[in-house]
């Protein structure tokens, strides 16, 4: 197991785990913290997995996810702001 994979596994266990826990508990606005943590952690995990396994062109996946996660989370915040 290379260092990249060790770092990716650490991120998945120590980052995605808490993000899922936070996103699954509390009220709708409170879960936003888990959603906002899951986005960057997933992007960083994908970067490390691409470094370990994939061709360098696959780095377009985390780059695309960054933009999509930003738009999606912003939409959640906007809708919750009008309904709360």
């Amino acid at each position: 197991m290379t260092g990249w994979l060790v770092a990716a596994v650490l991120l998945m266990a120590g980052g995605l785990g808490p993000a899922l826990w936070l996103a699954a508990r509390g009220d709708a606005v409170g879960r936003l913290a888990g959603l906002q943590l899951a986005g960057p952690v997933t992007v960083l995990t994908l970067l490390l997995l691409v470094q370990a396994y994939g061709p360098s062109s696959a780095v377009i996946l985390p780059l695309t996810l960054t933009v999509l996660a930003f738009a999606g989370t912003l939409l959640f915040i906007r809708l919750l702001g009008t309904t709360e």
Partner: protein
Amino acid sequence: MTVVAQVLVFAGVAVVVVSALAMLRARTLLTRLHLLAPVTTLGAPLVGIGLAVANGWSLGSGAILLTVVLLAVTGPVLQSAAGRVEAQRRGAIDEDLPS
């Protein structure tokens, strides 16, 4: 993987993991958002710079650096927007103010 890249990547991973675990202990959304800030503004750039150092100058390194710059720019925007919704819910700010 050079030593410098390894140190940078694992420092970034440590920042992300410590922040995530601290968010579990926090009780309010505003405190959690406060603890979320280092993930995008410190942890992600450290990991990205470490990967760029390992790859050297290439198009892939440029895409990695663009990714972490986007994370560092969009993270505070999302956190401030979520903080505003929470403040409105608590009645701390006027709901009629333009968003």
